């Protein structure tokens, strides 16, 4: 088994596809490999949003905990996708719970580090932000379509 450097890992992730090597190398300075066991909480609603994750393997469920009836899963994030938007926007606080459903490997970016680098170099910030915006757009669009309950029984 070959050991990949963080740089290599990031460049192979679809999120960084087409992003210049210097930018990836710069952002790699904020990153580290992380691992979550099945059912382990990745983050929790209300806690400071201090990380941004690229999922390499496994699956993370984004959950909303309701008072009665337990949590329901509103989205899942799989290998090749990214997890967490709240680190980007004040007050930097998680809105949902995130829990690994299976053994999950990811790259975690320190949010303060990322924000500092983006502030220092707006060009880098723009690259990162447009990538994040693309993902947010995908998720928002999917969430909106799901609002109509496509497969449900419609009655008028």
């Amino acid at each position: 088994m070959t050991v990949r450097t963080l740089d290599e890992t990031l460049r192979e992730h679809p999120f960084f596809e087409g992003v210049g090597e210097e930018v990836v190398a710069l952002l790699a300075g904020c990153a580290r490999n992380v691992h979550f066991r099945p059912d382990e909480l990745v983050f929790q609603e209300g806690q400071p949003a201090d990380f941004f994750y690229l999922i390499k393997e496994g699956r993370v469920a984004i959950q909303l905990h309701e008072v009665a009836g337990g949590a329901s899963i509103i989205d899942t994030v799989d290998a090749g996708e990214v997890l967490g938007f709240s680190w980007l926007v004040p007050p930097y606080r998680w809105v949902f719970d995130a829990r690994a459903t299976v053994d999950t490997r990811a790259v975690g970016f320190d949010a303060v580090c990322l924000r500092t680098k983006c502030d220092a170099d707006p060009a880098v910030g723009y690259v990162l932000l447009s990538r994040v915006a693309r993902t947010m757009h995908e998720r928002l669009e999917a969430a909106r379509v799901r609002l109509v309950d496509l497969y449900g029984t419609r009655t008028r």
Partner: protein
Amino acid sequence: MTEVLSAERSQAVDAMLPRSFRVERTRRDTRDTFTLELAPVGGDPLRFAAGQFTMLLAAGVGEVPISISGDPSGGGLLEHTIRNVGSVTRALVATPRGGVLGVRGPFGTGWEVERGEGGDVVLVAGGIGLAPLRPALLQVVRNRERYNRVLLLYGARTPEDILFAPDLERWERDHDVEVAVTVDNGPHDWRGRVGLVTRLVPRAGFDPSRTTAYVCGPEVMMRSTALALRDRGVRADRIRLSMERNMKCGVGLCGHCQLRELFLCVDGPVLGFDRLEPLMSRWEL
């Protein structure tokens, strides 16, 4: 005076006459969806192509178009998977074993899964849309060696609404079909995916340059899936969709299923996205 084609007159009369089929078995697939297995009362089994539909008649209640969900290779019982949502479908699924239903058809164009031979095949289903795709999958796994990668991307409402779960398992285990299921709403103990089925398209492992895709589900889902497939580089004419309109006669005479110049009961229901795209992006066309 005027020459009127009379050669096909008997054919036309037959197209409007239902054949009697007996209910051999009714299988409950999910809380609201049932599969009826029918045998002809006399005569040969119905020959059909994957993707075709019939008009099912509950005597005295009405007639509805239903896709055939069984094996097109013939011999077995005629299967229809029906969602119990209206007065006719309620009467159909309530027909007891031994009861008789009327069947007209089969009608319309099929999936033509042969077109995908030699390349990758991606089937994308939303909700009850898996039922019309099941004959296509049965045909593909029967001739599995003629296809390269076979993927089934399937979106259901909740885990309880997942259709044909034993089939999904068997296709994955025995026939090297890559099955990805996603639901709109998952309970906390659900280990599978949650999200829109179109989200599975960008990262699914097929080679767009040699892929044929078969898509069935609500029109909104088919449209966004077709766009996602084309964005990945699948040719529009190789993205085949099954359209739903008000099929009544099944032979293009009654006019109800028109989509601009198309009579979907004979020109469709299965058509390429190249043909459908301009017709799908306009409201109430």
